[in-house]
């Protein structure tokens, strides 16, 4: 890992608009986001020799490479488990570039979930969870699976709906500052939150992410190469994946301790190979498919003690100027839900000083992938 620390940098980011429905297909959206990221970096498409995305990405490397006129690829990788893969796409490229397998890497995610089908509506296909033990009982959607952990966290540690509201509000407040966010002009109040309809008690409408169409990409090169790029480099300081020994996916109920999720495993590796501690983090982009994942992640990544994740959100801790400004583009809850890739690009903007909700002087950023599935995380610095 010493070889990976600050050895590579993100030098380009790109994205399409985010919307409930976009007219173009996922492949076209992917191509637009990748070209935008390469242009941002000032790197020609034919220099790209590495690609990484999610196993759930439906635009494959062959089609993307052909459509964009990329160079000969010497590294390509796909990371499993949906939203858990976001940061690992960058981690895989970093490892490939640091070890000389490639020189210019592109990671991307293109998704039409705003207008597309919901995979869990399929009544017969096996999902990547042990569905026979859960679905006949009506535990049908990811929200139901995470709500079970949320209820237990509330029972065991006194986490409240106000704590979850603090998370939803911080994301919405940041989205209100971000013209690219779906919730740009739509403020959230406590009254709206408390009176909204239930999705799966104890989770309500505003505890759930937005279903979105859109695509994003980023470009990674060696630190040496990064000096010649158009934008200031954002270094990959540390990277980690995490699949705990007893992990069972979204329904982590058969772990000895179901409230200790993949974040704990990823965090141990992430901090072990970093010069930073949680106290050194200026801003965080934490995967927020559901508000209830934030307290679990705050504990897992060591920002507070076990069971203290709800209380951590009090007193404006997650707002700009607070202890840990969170999801400053609006996150999955209020900017766009594109399997968490927007958290990576926002981390880059913060360290460039170009976020629409800029944390003054931000020099370090934690970015995390889906908690509740085998996950991944990045420590970025400028």
């Amino acid at each position, binding site marked *: 890992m010493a070889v990976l620390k600050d050895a590579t940098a993100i030098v380009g980011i790109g994205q399409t608009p985010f919307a409930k429905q976009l007219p173009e297909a996922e492949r076209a959206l992917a191509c637009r986001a990748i070209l935008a990221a390469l242009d941002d970096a000032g790197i020609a498409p034919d220099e790209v020799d590495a690609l990484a995305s999610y196993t759930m990405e439906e635009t494959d490397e062959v089609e993307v490479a052909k459509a964009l006129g990329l160079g000969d690829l010497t590294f390509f990788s796909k990371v499993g488990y949906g939203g858990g893969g976001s940061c690992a796409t960058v981690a895989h490229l970093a490892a490939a570039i640091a070890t000389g397998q490639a020189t210019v890497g592109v990671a991307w995610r293109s998704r039409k979930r705003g207008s597309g089908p919901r995979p869990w509506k399929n009544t017969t296909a096996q999902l990547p969870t042990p*569905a*026979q033990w859960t679905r006949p*009982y*009506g*535990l049908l959607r990811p929200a*139901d699976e995470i709500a079970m952990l949320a209820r237990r966290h509330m029972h065991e540690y006194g986490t409240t709906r106000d704590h979850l509201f603090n998370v939803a509000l911080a994301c919405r407040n940041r989205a209100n500052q971000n013209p690219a966010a779906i919730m740009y002009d739509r403020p959230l109040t406590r009254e709206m939150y408390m009176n909204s309809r*239930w999705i*799966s008690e*104890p989770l309500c409408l505003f505890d759930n992410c937005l279903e979105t169409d859109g695509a994003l990409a980023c470009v990674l090169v060696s630190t040496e190469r990064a000096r010649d790029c158009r934008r200031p480099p954002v270094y990959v300081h540390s990277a980690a994946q995490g699949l705990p020994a007893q992990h069972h996916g979204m329904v982590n*109920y058969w772990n000895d301790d179901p409230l200790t999720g993949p974040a704990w495993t990823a965090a141990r590796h992430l901090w072990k190979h970093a010069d930073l501690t949680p106290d050194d983090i200026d801003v965080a982009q934490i995967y927020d498919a559901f508000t209830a994942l934030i307290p679990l992640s705050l504990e897992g990544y060591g920002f507070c003690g076990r069971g203290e994740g709800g209380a951590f959100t009090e007193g404006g801790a997650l707002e700009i100027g607070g202890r840990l400004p969170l999801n400053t583009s609006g996150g999955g809850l209020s900017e766009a839900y594109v399997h968490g890739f927007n958290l990576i690009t926002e981390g880059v903007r913060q360290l460039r000083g170009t976020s629409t909700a800029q944390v003054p002087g931000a020099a370090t950023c934690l970015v995390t992938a889906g908690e509740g599935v085998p996950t991944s995380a990045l420590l970025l610095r400028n």
Partner: protein
Amino acid sequence: MLTPVVDDDGAPFWEYAAQGELRIQACADCGELRFPPRPCCPHCRSFATEWRRVAGRGRVWSYVLPHPPLLPDYAEQAPYNVVLVELTDAPRIRLVGNLVSEPGARLDSVPVERIRIGARVQVVFTATGLPQWVLERP
């Protein structure tokens, strides 16, 4: 309603359930229980398994109340409960299920205010062999 899409490892569970028995996979060498069923024991790596009958008593570890949008059969009963039951015999074995007033009753047949974490429950089986749970003290 959805029926279990059974795999090779899980099939014995459902066969016993169809006979009204709650059985959990155990290692035939080291004796450790495991769930969900797996081909190999994570403690001693033995492939020898047996299916141990458990008392079918437990406590509610957590629960959720799903509301629509849901699949039609479930939406019609919503909001209903889904409980996670920790077995008394084996506290780290937790089974997802529904708390009902009697075997085969609707998924919303127990009033929400009766459901709480820690409540003692007893297994029952539907006519098709799906395990469900009733309150020990209804």
